[in-house]
């Protein structure tokens, strides 16, 4: 039998109850904080779940792509990922577009401040996905390549890194871009160059997968990680530095909006 939310609350330790109640009473400018924290939680569960899956099935079923077990445990995961990514992209971008603000000229300073906070949360969730794709699973790829000789572009780590992690951060970065474009006046009037660079540059990392795998059709070596064939990824990630410009745009506008706001205790 499923527990009710009241029963769940009662079962929580005392130390967790107070912060959770405070979250429910978040100030107006942090109204999306609970959703933001949930997004972090869900992503953490997904990424750690995928890593545990690798720990369980990479050696037992992921060494030889010609084995039937590889098809069962890894290619099936790959197809599931494609479906999830396609549905998630359509749903999320569709929702952001359909629920766009059609009257951006009349939003109050308080509402605009709130939306700048939400945009920052979107970018923060994007950078969290960049962490898993660019840091953990990226370097883990080297570790796996040094224990298993590649006989396919769909290795036990690539299936998660290239075909799930990369599209996922692209989707989340794109969502931040669409959110800004559809809900914040300055971003609707002009296209923010730093936001565009910070989203489209790392998107090119996904495209570089093709270049990278094409290169590996020539070289059997497993593998020199700092090789030039990988530098397409490197150039793509430099564009994440555009976040500095986004921060400056946000701070500039927030100062103006705070100046327009009445002082409150």
């Amino acid at each position, binding site marked *: 039998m499923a527990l009710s939310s009241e029963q769940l609350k009662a079962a929580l330790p005392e130390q967790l109850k107070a912060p959770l109640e405070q979250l429910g009473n978040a*100030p107006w*400018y942090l109204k999306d904080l609970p959703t933001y924290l949930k997004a972090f939680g869900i992503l953490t569960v997904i990424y750690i779940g995928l890593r545990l899956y*690798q*720990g369980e099935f990479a050696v037992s079923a992921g060494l030889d792509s010609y084995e039937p077990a590889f098809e069962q445990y890894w290619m099936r995961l790959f197809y599931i990922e494609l479906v999830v990514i396609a549905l998630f992209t359509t749903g999320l971008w569709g929702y952001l577009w359909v629920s766009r603000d059609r009257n951006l000229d009349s939003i109050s300073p308080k509402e605009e401040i709130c939306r*700048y*906070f939400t945009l*920052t*949360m979107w970018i*923060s969730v994007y950078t*969290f996905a*960049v*962490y*898993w*794709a*660019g*840091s*953990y699973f990226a*370097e*883990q790829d*080297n*570790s*796996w390549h*040094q*224990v298993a*000789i590649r006989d396919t572009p769909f290795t036990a780590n690539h299936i998660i890194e290239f075909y799930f992690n990369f599209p996922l951060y692209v989707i989340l970065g794109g969502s931040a871009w669409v959110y800004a474009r559809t809900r914040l006046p*300055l971003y609707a*009037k*002009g*296209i923010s*160059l*730093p936001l565009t*660079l910070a989203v489209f540059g790392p998107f090119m990392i996904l495209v570089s997968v093709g270049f990278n795998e094409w290169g590996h059709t020539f070289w059997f*070596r*497993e*593998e*020199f*990680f*700092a090789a030039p064939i*990988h*530098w397409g*990824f*490197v150039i793509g*990630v*430099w564009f994440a*530095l*555009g*976040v*500095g*410009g986004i*921060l*400056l*745009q946000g701070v*500039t*506008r*927030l*100062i103006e909006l*705070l*100046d327009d706001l009445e*002082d409150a*205790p």
Partner: protein
Amino acid sequence: MMSANISNRSFRPYTGEKARISRAYDYLILVLALFLFIGAFHLHFALTVGDWDFWVDWKDRQYWPLVTPLMGITFPAAVQYVMWNKFRLPMGATLCVAALLIGTWITRVFAYHYWNFFPINMVLPATMLPGALVLDFILMLSNSLTITAIFGGAAFALLFYPTNWPIFGLFHVPVEQGNGQVTVADLFGFQYIRTGMPEYLRIIERGTLRTYGQYATPLSAFASALLCSLMYTLWWYIGKWFSTVRYLNKI
């Protein structure tokens, strides 16, 4: 094209709700920046320095002290531009390098050691923290791109080898293996088979390098110092270019 300029209408400190709004925004940015710099800098680092940082037997005295600071000073310089020039925060380099260390340590433990059973001593990451602290310190004191590039960039490179020596020196102890002399680090490389072998083994201690004796390391470090000064300047401007606040009419 529009451009954004920092408002100069009010620079008095915020109080009450405005102060809380400002502080809440700071915390959001802190979380965002932490994951951004772990993810972005780590990917850049892993695919440029990469192998020299992954494996203890790659940490030689010719390329390792040259390549690591040279590729490691990039993001710190770019981030210093924004954090110092726009916010007067003298911590851009330290933030980047600390973020990189967090990312590399998590990966070495969970991806190399727990997944594929490489001994953690074989995959210890190098540190650039002392150099990063000095780089931030010199920028804060001098408030000068030129001074920081020349002296900070050089210090970043020159400090690399001596500050890593307490971590990695013990792996350079010579041992006899198969009637030959190798280091403990080399022995790790031979004992733990990697798919890239035999080409992946780094046996560079040969030819003219041996006749250079103990001078190879300081020569590499000074070569790196020169290149780091140039690289710092280049990346300072890359940081400046990426922190544009332009809005475009179309893309």
